[in-house]
């Protein structure tokens, strides 16, 4: 299932309907809790497109509260909260400034994508992970053997790298292989997650696509 979450709508509903800027930690915490509430409603295997298109300013404190603290719940190596993947959509250059700083601070990474553009990986990613992720995007999907063949990486290393990318929620793991995390705007089905789409919006700024 893919769920589209308009972050500015969550801001207006959670904090104040006059605000268009994501600034201050309390605001960030309120918005994150609003997003988490929606994620709790959309099931255990989902892809959330967090849409920042209508957000004016995002400062470092708010980026830490929303982006870093949200991701950390789902990329835990031990017990991730649930299998939820994220695409950060509609990011401006100034949004990326704040987000890249907090990703670096927490050694996190995420996928960002604009309409009609290829998905991009930003944050802390080593060379093998980046090469594997880019190859998965090029291939559309891959199992470890496919990745090993395409990159020349030893098979066991390819398997470990894909598993790491999955744990970091940067690729989607399905029975048929690993799929890139990217939004529906690319026109690609990210690993069958569209299978049980349903509308959970109810006018709350969240919609399934």
């Amino acid at each position, binding site marked *: 299932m893919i769920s589209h979450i308009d972050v500015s709508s969550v801001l207006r509903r959670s904090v*104040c309907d*006059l*605000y*268009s*800027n994501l*600034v*201050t*930690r*309390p*605001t960030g915490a309120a918005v994150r809790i609003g997003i988490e509430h929606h994620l709790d409603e959309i099931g255990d295997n989902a892809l959330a497109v967090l849409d920042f298109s209508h957000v*004016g*300013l*995002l*400062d*470092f*404190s708010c980026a*830490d*509260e929303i982006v*870093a*603290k949200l991701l950390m719940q789902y990329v835990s190596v031990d017990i991730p909260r649930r299998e939820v993947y994220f695409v950060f959509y509609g990011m*401006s*250059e*100034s949004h990326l*400034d*704040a987000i890249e*700083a*907090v990703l670096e*601070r*927490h050694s996190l990474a995420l996928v960002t994508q604009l309409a009609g553009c290829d998905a991009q990986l930003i944050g802390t990613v080593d060379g093998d992970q980046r090469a594997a992720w880019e190859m998965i995007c090029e291939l559309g999907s891959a199992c470890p053997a496919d990745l090993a063949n395409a990159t020349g990486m030893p098979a066991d290393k390819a398997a470990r790298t894909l598993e790491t990318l999955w744990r970091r929620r940067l690729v989607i793991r399905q029975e048929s292989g690993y799929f890139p995390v990217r939004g529906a705007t690319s026109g690609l089905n990210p690993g069958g997650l569209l299978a049980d789409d349903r509308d959970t919006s109810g006018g709350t700024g969240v919609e399934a696509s």
Partner: protein
Amino acid sequence: MTTIIIVPPSLDDQSFEQIFDQLALIPPDEKVLVDARRTRWASPFGLTALLTVAQTRLERPALAIPENEDTASYWGRASFFRHAESLYDISGRVPRSRQASESSVLLEVTPVVHTQDVHTVVENIQQRARAILQEKLHLQSKVTMRFTMALSEICQNVIEHAGTGGWVAVQAYKWQQRLGGRSVVVIAVCDAGMGFRKSLESAHGSERDDRWGDRMALEETMMRGVSRFRDPGRGQGLAGVKRFIGNWQGKFSVRSGTARIAIVPEWDQDEVMREGLAPFPGAQVQITIPERMPDA
């Protein structure tokens, strides 16, 4: 007994040290008269710090406002009197207040007490600053956003660390003598709260080595991103501000307690660190962003 504090004719972050020096000699419960009659000019730092001075006094102070009408008028447009009237017994003719739309001030003196005040500051500066920052300072829109991010982070520091409210003001200038006539925008954020040293001590304890003091507290916070919060995500705000200031050849100074630290660009001659200043509560921050030259 009332002690008279003389305000220098030109009041900025450097000359304000004269006021801190005078105040350090007077017990906080003694009445003071802050005499600004001869003052002809004040920066955002001067105006916001004057308000914090009143907040440190146990006996309500008096203020003699500038005799020069243009000066008093500017202080009025900057909303200084609106806030000073609740803190000082004012003598002198306060100019009539004008609508904000008549003001040439980028951001009038604004209190920063609650989280929503930061939203107000950011919304106001976005509405009012775009034309000035982009047309006068030739800042690209993405830089305007980073400037506003810096403002937001500094204001949040007051709410999270000062333990009391503070004040913010922003003004754009054309520096006729300095920087070859380039324009600058100056942000000042001042509070009379606990200051950097006490803020860190509140979490990490005061039992430190002999070097511990205001200077080291400023160095730990500004240079090493230490925060009183143990959350690893903390400390990024000031780090982000510092990065932006460095990239844009700006100047960033923080005075807290008895020390002052500054990130000094090539165009300025200020000292990076000063110690042994007259003690004053809270933190007083100033950021100066210069106009980018066309070939820069």
